[in-house]
């Protein structure tokens, strides 16, 4: 991710998400909207900005998304916990890397992240959280492509 090489168990996160993706996406009634990809895809972020925006996105998921995704399904809750704790671990490493490499967010990616927050705030919190969680593979794909 730009200057940052963070080892995270992508396979484990993907496996956890794959196990609940259909369940989570079925809870998202508004399929025409996207939190992460509207209006521009993550793939347009410059490589020098990737480390910073990845850290922002992990913070976004840890602080705002996972806590509003509790369901009545014990299996789903366990997988969300697994993903959340993996994100917490990865965010810590990303944060350390950002400091060491002084990764700063450029104007473009700051704008991109603001747009993501605006998309999120535009929905009621549970719908926004479920939609964001349902789009996790968009984030994971972007991170793997950024390697």
């Amino acid at each position, binding site marked *: 991710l730009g200057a940052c090489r963070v080892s995270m*168990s992508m396979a*484990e996160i993907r496996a956890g998400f794959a196990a609940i993706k259909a369940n989570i996406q079925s809870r998202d009634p508004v399929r025409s909207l996207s939190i992460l990809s509207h209006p521009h895809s993550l793939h347009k972020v410059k490589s020098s900005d990737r480390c910073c925006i990845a850290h922002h996105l992990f913070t976004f998921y*840890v*602080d705002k998304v996972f806590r509003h995704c509790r369901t009545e399904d014990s299996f789903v809750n*366990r997988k969300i*916990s*697994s993903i959340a704790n993996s994100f*917490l671990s990865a965010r810590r490493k990303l944060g350390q890397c950002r400091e060491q490499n002084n990764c700063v967010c450029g104007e473009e990616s700051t704008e991109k992240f603001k747009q993501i927050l605006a998309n999120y705030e535009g929905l009621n919190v549970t719908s926004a959280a479920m939609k964001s969680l349902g789009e996790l593979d968009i984030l994971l794909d972007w991170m793997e492509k950024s390697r």
Partner: protein
Amino acid sequence: GDAFLPAPQSISILSTNMKHFLTWSPVIVQGATVRYSVEFQGEYEREYANGSWVPISECSLTTATVCNITEDISATVAYKLRVRAQLGTTRSQWGTTKGFFNRAMTSLTPPLLMVVADGHHLLVELADMGPSFQFRVLYWKKGQESRVQQKVLKEVSSVLHLDTMEAGAEYCVKAQAHVEAINRSSSFSPTQCVRAQGDKSMWL
């Protein structure tokens, strides 16, 4: 009044090769079957979800005194586990693990391997240790310990071809397991040596 049920004691985690088990001592009530329920709490739950606990359904109202928590301990952060006893409608207090458990603490054993000389071919077969594991295989011609070669396996395939050996020469192999998720390796397996088939060419 409700009978008193003591909390489970001697709660501990046994973790080897990224397989994690919670165990506890049974709560003995004469002539009755006591059941147990297990919950876990990751760093995320402590820091961002009001210290909430997540039940493990496979270990809810179980009569066993062991619970496979591998699937739930799936991030490299500090976890806490707790278990309580239940008899009918009477529930004990929770018994909680002392300190935290991080999967980075798992004990790693050297891989099991079988080295085969198939004619002039040096082959090795490694026992599968699970999805988290990679292997580093070192091999050398006996007497040339300074010229060790290495192969890294990201996944266990059936048999790995290491080298084509010189006729009649002896080759040695050892291996260690590596877990990327916790960035740790096991110690090396014992070295195994095999001798290549002698040369069959006939002098005329």
